[in-house]
């Protein structure tokens, strides 16, 4: 089995799906000749032609808006938005058009598109290249929101997303693009959207996170004293969120800490904290804790290390929560 990084796994999934389904079209800024600024679509235009891998003008609303039309007309567009900071101009088409296409037509029209978007901080990028807006889209009925934390999951989830009959935002944590290499099966496989994964089992506390923060949490747990046993859950899908897996775990541990990069107020950690309270109230021995980005704009990179949750903050919160 080849060892691939996140970029390689996604590239492989795209290539295999395009080979299998002529309805798939990739469009976005610099996705063609250049293979994308992160090389995720590298080689695809050469292989599938400029018709199916389109270098678009600098037009995010245009990328998503035309993708909606392609989808309504039976194609399977897989647009790329170059950075999450540039989803803004496409917000209206995504939230008010794509997400409502099926419901406002009572199923007469559907919008099977998969929007690929690099997300998150930690790579010393300039402004608007390090944000984490997943909560905004998870609050948008009609959209599914996926964020893998590793190459194996990325391939399986992306194939599921592309085959999903409804619009999916597929967030790719930049920080992980090249940082994790692992064995990824050559053959195609899918992973279910809406299912979280228990990364490591534990009995004392449940640690819930997603995207690049999964590695941060894993590293933190390695530094933790043997005697404490933490169950780590990788959400993998933000919406629909897998509350069953979370509730099962917290009912057992009685304690939970949620970790994410986005600002705390209104972040998706709030939804998870509420769901845990609603589902595990009588089991809870401490308030669910949120270790998140601060309620400031994502700072320029000189301060991003201070902004992003790190092992120390995660460990401290786990200890506080256990000692509560």
């Amino acid at each position, binding site marked *: 089995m080849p060892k691939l990084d996140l970029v390689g796994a996604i590239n492989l999934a795209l290539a295999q799906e395009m080979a299998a389904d002529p309805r798939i079209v990739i469009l976005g800024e610099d996705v063609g000749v250049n293979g994308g600024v992160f090389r995720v679509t590298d080689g695809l235009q050469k292989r599938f032609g400029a018709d199916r891998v389109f270098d678009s003008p600098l037009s995010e609303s245009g990328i998503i808006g*035309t993708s909606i039309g392609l989808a309504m007309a039976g194609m399977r567009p897989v647009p790329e938005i170059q950075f999450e900071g540039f989803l803004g101009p496409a917000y209206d088409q995504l939230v008010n058009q794509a997400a409502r296409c099926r419901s406002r037509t009572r199923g007469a029209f559907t919008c099977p598109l998969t929007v690929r978007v690099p997300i998150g901080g930690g790579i010393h990028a300039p402004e608007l290249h390090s944000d984490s807006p997943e909560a905004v889209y998870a609050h948008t009925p009609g959209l599914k929101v996926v964020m893998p934390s590793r190459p194996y999951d990325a391939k399986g989830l992306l194939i599921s997303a592309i085959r999903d009959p409804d619009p999916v935002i597929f967030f790719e944590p930049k920080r992980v693009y090249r940082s994790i290499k692992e064995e990824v099966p050559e053959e195609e496989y899918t992973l279910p959207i809406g299912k979280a994964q228990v990364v490591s089992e534990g009995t004392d506390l449940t640690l819930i996170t997603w995207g690049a923060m999964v590695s941060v949490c894993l590293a933190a747990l390695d530094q933790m004293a043997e005697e404490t046993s933490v169950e780590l859950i990788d959400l993998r899908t933000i919406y629909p969120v897998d509350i069953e897996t979370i509730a099962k775990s917290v009912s057992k541990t009685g304690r939970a800490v949620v970790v994410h990069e986005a600002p705390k107020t209104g972040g998706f950690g709030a939804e998870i904290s509420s769901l845990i309270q609603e589902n595990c109230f009588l089991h809870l021995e401490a308030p669910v804790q949120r270790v998140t980005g601060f309620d400031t704009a994502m700072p320029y990179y000189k301060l991003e290390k201070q902004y992003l949750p790190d092992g120390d903050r995660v460990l401290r919160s786990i200890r506080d929560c256990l000692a509560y």
Partner: protein
Amino acid sequence: MPIETIYTAQIQMLRLLDEEGRLDVALADPLLSDSDVKSLYEQMIVCREFDEAAFKLQRSGRMGTFPQNKGHEAITLGAAKALRKGIDWIVPYYRENPAMFLHGLPMHYVLLHWMGDERGNAIPANLSMSPLGLAIGTQTLHAVGIAWAFKLRKEDRAVLCFFGEGATSTGDFHEAMNFASLLKAPVIFCCMNNQWAISTCCSKQSAAPTFAQRALAYDMPTIRIDGNDLFASYKATKDAIDRARAGNGPSFIEALTYRLGDHTTADDARRYRPADELAAALKLDPMIRTRKYLESKNLWDEVKQSKAIEKAKAIVKDVIAVAEGIEKPTTDQMFDSMFAELPDELQRQKQTLQTDSIGQDPTQVGLQLPGDAARERVL
């Protein structure tokens, strides 16, 4: 070359049928046949009846907000007539009912939409059109995407996208025009300049003398036409469709017309629109000159007129009956249309019609309420 001219452009204005119903036969090529004009005029009468009836439905509290279409009959029907039914697509906003009806949309769908029922957007699969849309400008990008799909699949089909002059101020319109010209997509941008965007007159929408010149930015074929002229509307659209089908990409048409009614039933145009302007526009009502043309060819008279109106009233009466006869939508429809497959949380919400966790969880029963249907269902 210290200074040289590197690009020149001009905008032309086309009108074939004047206010008196006189046609410039030499220029009217392709030309609508007599029988076509006759049936299109009959269609205008039906649409105008529908328009007035819908207005009354709102006024009598039987329907929500409705935007009257009156004044738009010539451009919508003339343009739509240039399309091939079931092949070429119509992407509307909300002021081209005549075009949609001509291409087979059951008229009660439009009423359903404005009666606050999504089923009015459930376009029958055999029709090639998208539903009414209210987010100004957004549909221009969808139209380009649909046309792009046709091109990618090498299907010989074109897309006709309607929008108002106000829509040309949106970023989406600009991005759609740019994408279309880059893709050489088979799409026709039909801008119905009815001179008002709610209370904003077109001179506050653009400082340029025409909206047709918006297309010059993309080097796109463009023309301004008299949108109250059925023949010019047909010819300009047909020429554009032929260009698109020949692989020569998109075209832009500015159809100069007038919004003869209020913006919608929620609006009162007297607050901002000079009475004499409306009076002048009423004289240019596309139905007047179309009728004059038919009469000049002895294809129409007062008898035919009253017969047609009677027939139209009967049709519209039935349409209203159908629309009002449709059973109320269920909350299930609201949930079931969200995704191909409902996530668990949506299932729970659908079954319990509750969002609070206790209410959603049959094992956590609170005080019983008399006739608490939702709760009983889950117990």
